[in-house]
């Protein structure tokens, strides 16, 4: 069912399709219009529009059932037929394109009779329980029955049908019972009109192709995979079919439970870096369902299982609603007033600073916070704490992107918008798993691949994208973990030595000295694919073929993820990618570029907002006197000109007893950061840890002050996604704990003696815009006007910047950097012969604090260790066995999943459950430039075991104790069950 407020124009806006080098560079058929007459009215619409769309755009509503703007025209229901002067018969208006001078009649007696006949047939095989049907109030079938004036069904209900389980006492073979296997929606086949909208949504929009129309004629029915239940099938529960369904056949369970929403508000998803736009469909302050926004600039009406369905955490009974304090982490929690909690936190921070110095405290922001919240936390640290000890979780994911792209291109951000992929001819995916990590963008990418774009995947693991329905990678460069830089250098070697450099681009756009130095470096024989094969494990012929394809196949676009950044050479690899894109001229226009896929919703934004200890908002170094003076004047305070501590440095400093107070907003370092035991030792050494979160997360178990935060549904603000797109988060209900997060930070600043007096988050954004040149044109009003804005947005780019570096790079000339491959010091040996690498899964999100508190656990309820059959057999490990995984940092136990997705010598796991202890194993090795942890390479041994690890036993005991200490605070602190 579509949103309650969106108008469905029936068919999509006309699209320009382009595949191959010659057509991509041809201009799109831009802004050409056609004049025609519909029901006597002259109308003007874009060339390529359907007659159905042309009519709808002009307020003329032609009845329709199988057509929806979400999908390509199909022409099966025969309800939208019209008469066109000079044309024979009654063409379907959805499949008939407009033509100049066309004269269309949408209503006359003949058409009415035909439509009534069609509807009569539909309704003869449809239940008549409209009054108690969940679609009631928003059912397209019911609306059409009304529109065509259906008054009787002459065929009766005694014949063959799909409606009744029994007929004349006998079982009805055509009847299929309700499928309620999916936790979020039901499939009631008795209400199905076989319009194929669900099947087409799964094909065209999601690209999973899990649904089909089974059988022929009257026996036709919708089936999931091989006529399985939805949960058993290949369905990924994106919900596109539910949204496409015109009847109650596919309905959200929350809709069935609560009834139709009465209002709708546009907001932005709080999960991954795609940043999908949603309509929160509400009954008062209660969410009935989330519907992806058809006008959403990042997602165009699509979503995934997390964004659409997994919001139950926001009202979960684990949520803590009252502030709490305790003197020691072994003490029970005590519920206190907001005043007391804030006063206590401030007095502790002041006490620690008085005793250990001004630099002994700091703060951590999160990519799960809005821009306004992160801005305020870094302002609190710099202005109220008086130091630069502020960092954000991007430290442990994309900090190398910020560093590497700034060094080469001049700006710490991706170069394109998502739609750019529709102009790409060769798509290169490196160290990213979009179908799991960025599913909605993956759907768009798959759409382009089905149109014919070529695909190169560089990943140690056989991710789904390597081979998926209607898509196969031309090259899967299955490299050994930790050898990215060796691979990118050998790709560059081929480009340089085989004369594939875009010399004109390099000459015009890049520094010639740095290019020549780089060219000489990569051309050296030691970087050749043949010599690097021993390092990377990738056959040289594959590398050569992939390099030729990228350099000569038309528009080449690189998409990368944490498989690039979370390495000891993460920053080097980012530079290597930028080098390759510049050398082949694949930057500065649509369809190309260097595109980091950000893990969390606001990774880009939290970095933009000055969350790093060395930078003010807008990536300006704290030692830059002019910038510092600007902030000193605005904030009326003296600021430090030296960088502060980064997150891992904070832990070291805590163990040195130099850093003893920490304010953490929305981040769970005790689960997400590497070498858990080191992190928890550091947290235990601190004298005041203040955690602001929805739940008593792993970090909060080491906290002294707990400040209950607000979910994204409870506050106003903005998120900035992976394409630099700033979108509004809109409050749809009041903060359940009393304050929105920005208000809590403000209270803390005031208690520390630094005055903050914002009345609304829009005032914070106004301040950001005043102080940050790339945000100069951004305001809540302007975002409301445009829908979303991609920064830079200023006088030069008043509507924002979809593609960066068009005529020149942000830094002027593009800079090539020499990227020598340096092997990680994390080496396999006889004791630790396997390499562990980590990643994510579709249904869970990051540390899982949100998704573990939803039905998404039905897809993934524990982290497993993937191991190749060969390695498993050597160790006597069978699928499902308990496996002990030991590294130099620690050990844990997980159940085995024996699979050829991983190569021999490599094991893989996810980190969504704290008791898994994935980060007990990972080490403190980190990226040389940014200290981003080397999560992706840990030398381990795996053995078959029969019980949890010692760490897991200690973890369980400690968690039980902390739960007990929490329960002592009383039932009032929890959300109502």
């Amino acid at each position, binding site marked *: 069912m579509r949103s309650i407020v969106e108008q469905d124009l029936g068919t999509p806006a006309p699209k320009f399709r382009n595949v191959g080098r010659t057509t991509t560079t041809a201009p799109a058929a831009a802004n050409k219009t056609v004049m025609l007459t519909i029901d006597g009215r002259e109308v003007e619409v874009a060339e390529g529009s359907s007659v159905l769309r042309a009519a709808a755009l002009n307020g003329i509503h032609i009845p329709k059932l199988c057509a929806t703007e979400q999908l390509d025209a199909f022409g099966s229901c025969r309800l939208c037929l019209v008469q066109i002067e000079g044309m024979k018969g009654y063409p379907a208006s959805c499949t008939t394109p407009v033509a100049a001078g066309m004269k269309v009649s949408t209503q006359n007696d003949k058409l009415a009779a035909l439509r009534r006949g069609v509807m009569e047939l539909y309704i003869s095989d449809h239940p008549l329980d409209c009054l108690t049907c969940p679609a009631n109030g928003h059912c397209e079938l019911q609306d059409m029955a009304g529109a065509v004036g259906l008054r009787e069904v002459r065929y009766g209900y005694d014949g063959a049908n799909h409606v009744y389980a029994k007929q004349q006492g006998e079982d009805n073979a055509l009847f299929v019972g309700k499928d309620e296997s999916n936790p979020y929606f039901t499939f009631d086949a008795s209400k199905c009109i076989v319009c194929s909208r669900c099947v087409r949504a799964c094909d065209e929009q999601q690209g999973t192709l899990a649904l089909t129309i089974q059988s022929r004629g009257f026996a036709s029915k919708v089936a999931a995979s091989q006529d399985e239940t939805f949960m058993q099938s290949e369905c990924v529960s994106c919900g596109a079919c539910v949204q496409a369904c015109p009847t109650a056949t596919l309905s959200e369970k929350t809709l069935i439970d609560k009834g139709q929403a009465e209002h709708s508000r546009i907001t932005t998803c709080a999960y991954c870096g795609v940043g999908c736009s949603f309509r929160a469909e509400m009954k008062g302050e209660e969410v009935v369902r989330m519907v992806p926004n058809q006008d959403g600039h990042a997602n165009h009406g699509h979503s995934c299982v997390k964004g659409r369905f997994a919001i139950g955490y926001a009202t979960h009974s684990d949520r803590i609603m009252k502030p709490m304090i305790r003197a020691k982490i072994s003490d029970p929690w005590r519920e206190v007033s907001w005043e007391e909690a804030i006063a206590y936190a401030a007095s502790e921070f002041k006490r620690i600073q008085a005793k250990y110095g001004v630099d002994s405290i700091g703060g951590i922001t999160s990519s799960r916070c809005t821009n306004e919240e992160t801005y305020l936390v870094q302002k609190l640290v710099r202005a109220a704490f008086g130091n630069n000890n502020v960092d954000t979780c991007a430290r442990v994911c994309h900090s190398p992107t910020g560093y590497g792209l700034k060094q080469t291109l001049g700006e710490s951000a991706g170069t394109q918008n998502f739609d750019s992929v529709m102009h790409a001819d060769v798509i290169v995916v490196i160290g990213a798993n979009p179908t799991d990590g960025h599913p909605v963008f993956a759907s768009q990418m798959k759409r382009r691949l089905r149109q014919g774009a070529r695909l190169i995947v560089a990943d140690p693991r056989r991710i789904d994208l390597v081979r998926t329905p209607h898509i196969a990678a031309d090259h899967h460069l299955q490299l050994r973990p930790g050898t990215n830089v060796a691979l990118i250098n050998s790709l560059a070697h081929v480009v340089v030595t085989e004369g594939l450099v875009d010399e004109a681009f390099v000459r015009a756009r890049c520094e010639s000295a740095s290019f020549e130095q780089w060219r000489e470096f990569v051309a050296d024989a030691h970087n050749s694919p043949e010599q690097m094969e021993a390092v990377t494990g990738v056959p040289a012929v594959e590398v050569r073929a992939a390099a030729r394809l990228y350099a000569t196949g038309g528009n080449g676009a690189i998409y990368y993820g944490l498989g690039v950044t979370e390495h000891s050479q993460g920053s080097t690899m980012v530079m290597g990618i930028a080098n390759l894109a510049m050398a082949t001229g694949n930057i500065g226009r649509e369809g190309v570029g260097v595109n980091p896929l950000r893990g969390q919703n606001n990774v880009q934004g939290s970095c933009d907002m000055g969350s790093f200890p060395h930078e003010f908002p807008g990536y300006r170094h704290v030692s830059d006197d002019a910038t510092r003076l600007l902030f000193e004047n605005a904030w009326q305070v003296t600021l430090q000109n030296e*960088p502060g501590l980064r997150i891992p440095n904070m832990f070291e400093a805590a*163990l*040195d007893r130099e850093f003893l107070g920490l304010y953490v907003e929305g981040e769970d370092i005790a689960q997400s950061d590497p070498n858990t035991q080191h992190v928890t030792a550091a947290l235990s050494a601190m004298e005041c840890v203040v955690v602001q979160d929805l739940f008593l997360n792993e970090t909060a178990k080491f906290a002294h002050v707990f400040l209950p935060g607000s979910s994204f549904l409870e506050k106003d603000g903005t998120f900035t996604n992976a394409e630099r797109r700033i979108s509004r988060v809109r409050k749809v209900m009041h903060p359940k704990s009393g304050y929105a997060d920005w208000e809590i930070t403000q209270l803390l600043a005031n208690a520390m003696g630094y005055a903050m007096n914002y009345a609304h988050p829009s005032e914070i954004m106004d301040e950001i815009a005043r102080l940050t040149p790339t945000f100069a044109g951004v305001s809540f009003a302007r975002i409301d006007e445009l829908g979303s804005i991609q920064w830079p947005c200023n006088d030069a780019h008043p509507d924002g910047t979809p593609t960066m570096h068009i005529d020149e790079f942000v830094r002027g000339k593009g800079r090539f950097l*020499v990227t020598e491959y340096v092997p990680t010091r994390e080496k396999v040996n006889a004791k630790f012969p396997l390499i562990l690498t980590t990643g994510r899964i579709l249904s869970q999100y990051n540390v899982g604090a949100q998704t573990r508190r939803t039905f998404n656990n039905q897809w993934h309820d524990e982290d497993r260790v993937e191991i190749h059959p060969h390695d498993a057999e050597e160790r006597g490990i069978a699928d499902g066995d308990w496996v002990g995984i030991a590294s130099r940092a620690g050990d844990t136990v997980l159940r085995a999943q024996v699979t050829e997705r991983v190569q021999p010598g490599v094991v893989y796991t996810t980190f969504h459950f704290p008791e898994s202890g994935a980060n007990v194993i990972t080490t403190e090795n980190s990226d*040389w430039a940014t200290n981003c942890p080397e999560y992706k390479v840990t030398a381990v041994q795996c053995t078959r075991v029969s019980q949890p690890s010692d760490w897991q036993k200690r973890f369980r005991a400690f968690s039980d104790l902390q739960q007990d200490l929490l329960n002592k605070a009383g039932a009032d602190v929890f959300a109502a069950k």
Partner: protein
Amino acid sequence: MSESAHQGPGHKGAAHLVEMANDIAAFFSGAGHAPAAAADGVADHLRKFWDPRMRRKLIAYGHQGGAGLSDAARLALVKLEAATASANAAE
């Protein structure tokens, strides 16, 4: 790496800083840059991204012999210390 670089349980002391500085030096030594040429890049990186406390610790460790530090890292520390001293003198 000498044991003297370690300072206590759960804590790697200067050893970790030495590893980090060497990793930075390894990048700036790319393409056969001599240690002297690489040292400028290393010193600049330490100045821009390291908290002063970390820099001071590593400089102090360098004065104690700096076991385990690569040549480029060692040279960078000398440059860093000289630059800090002249900046302080200027104030």
